[in-house]
């Protein structure tokens, strides 16, 4: 087990601030990337359910392009190709934008399915009350769709966190990068990968738990016709408890 020798662990703890710094960078990129992906997801998700064919087409192209090409290729394009035409983007911004746009496509699909899952009558009702399209979405449809959307959204968020590790490949200064460069300069691969694994696990595991909890809570949303059965079961249960 020389890969995990005491000396290597010692080296790691001497350089622990590198890992803390990387962890901070990863969190920073995750937060802003998540924000960007949510905004993009909401916008493109909503317009992919609109009546306008052009808007729907734009949303379709966005989703299909970014879901069907590798994130690494997209990030490399920003990092390696754009400088040839005079566009230089700082690495961290590349991380936020790259991860945000890529996962925005997944968020958009979640939002679309969420909106399509709300009964059509809700939209008609809002229309009949004189709500505009945006108002209908904001006040009527999205709040209801949120229940269906939350579990898959947290899943996408967890994937986003894991995928920020790709920045290591373009020297993004994130957790994975710090670990990788520390490992290749000290040869302490074992401890470095273990610590990085633990740090990613610490952020991803609670999210996975949350997703599981939300799925249990909201996942089995009863269909309208089941409500009466559910209500009577509920009141019976209450009565029995008394």
């Amino acid at each position, binding site marked *: 087990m020389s*890969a995990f020798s005491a000396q290597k662990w010692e080296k790691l703890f001497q350089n622990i601030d590198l890992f803390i710094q990387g962890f901070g960078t990863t969190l920073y990129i995750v937060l802003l990337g998540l924000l960007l992906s949510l905004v993009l997801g909401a916008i493109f998700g909503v317009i992919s359910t609109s009546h306008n064919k052009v808007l729907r087409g734009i949303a379709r192209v966005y989703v*299909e*392009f970014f*879901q*069907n*090409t*590798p*994130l*690494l*290729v997209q990030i*490399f*394009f920003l990092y*390696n*190709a754009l400088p*040839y*035409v005079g566009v230089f983007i700082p690495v961290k911004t590349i991380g936020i934008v790259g991860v945000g746009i890529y996962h925005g496509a997944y968020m958009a699909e979640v939002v679309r399915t969420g909106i399509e899952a709300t009964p059509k009558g809700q939209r008609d009702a809002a229309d009949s009350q004189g709500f505009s399209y945006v108002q209908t979405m904001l006040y009527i449809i999205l709040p209801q769709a949120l229940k269906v959307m939350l579990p898959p959204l947290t899943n996408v968020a*967890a994937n986003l966190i*894991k*995928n920020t*590790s*790709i920045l*290591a*490949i373009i020297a993004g200064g994130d957790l*994975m990068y710090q670990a*990788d460069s520390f*490992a290749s300069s000290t040869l302490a*691969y*074992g401890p470095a*990968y273990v610590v*990085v*694994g633990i740090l*990613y*696990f610490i952020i*991803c*595991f609670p999210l*996975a738990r949350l997703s599981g909890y939300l799925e249990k809570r909201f996942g089995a949303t009863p269909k309208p016709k089941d409500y009466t059965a559910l209500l009577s079961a509920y009141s019976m249960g209450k009565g029995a408890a008394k």
Partner: protein
Amino acid sequence: MNELMNAFESVFTRSNIFYMFRGLGVTLYVALISVILSVIFGTILALFRTYGNKFLKGFSVAYIELFRNTPNLLWVLAIRFMVRMPEPFDAPMYSGILAFTLFTSAVMAEIVRGGLNSVHAGQFEAAYSQGFNFFQTMVFIILPQCYKAIVPAMLSQVITVIKDTSFLAQVAIEEFFNNSKWIMSAQIDSTVNQSMRVFIIFGFVALVYFIINFTLSCIVRNSRKKQEA
């Protein structure tokens, strides 16, 4: 226009095309073998988690949570740099296959578990009443229905695996993106039309990935529709 043609000609020489498509072969091979192995291991893990005793269940849960909550890239790097692959599998490609199999098995296990839960409990009772033992019930009754239900989810995972094999470029495994990057760097030394050539290569790489994955995602959508109908 002439410049563009020249750029195309210098990028898509016969040897360059051959080199890139050989990389694409490696990409598809790694993805295919990893997916096949992950379906097998994923099924075993899912059976452990659903029907196993305390020990098997604990092992399965720990495995799944470990791999689902850490980045794939971490495993690619760790396996490549820390695991010495045994003799017939010592080519770099196999460490890629191992990393992707380990990681994807956890995802497949969750997909298969979802499929197992979707099979009606009455199917078990019926099989037992006909004298099937547990193994027979699984192989002949439950798993066929389970797999049928999870084909779309498994195919979506195939898309993810194909995209993520691009990580292997980072550990110098000669897959599609790695080879394309080599061609790119060979184009950079000549000063004429550099930017055009780099953009052409990126466009080509994105297009190839897109064609493969978009085809798969159309199949996913169709099979979902069929299931819902």
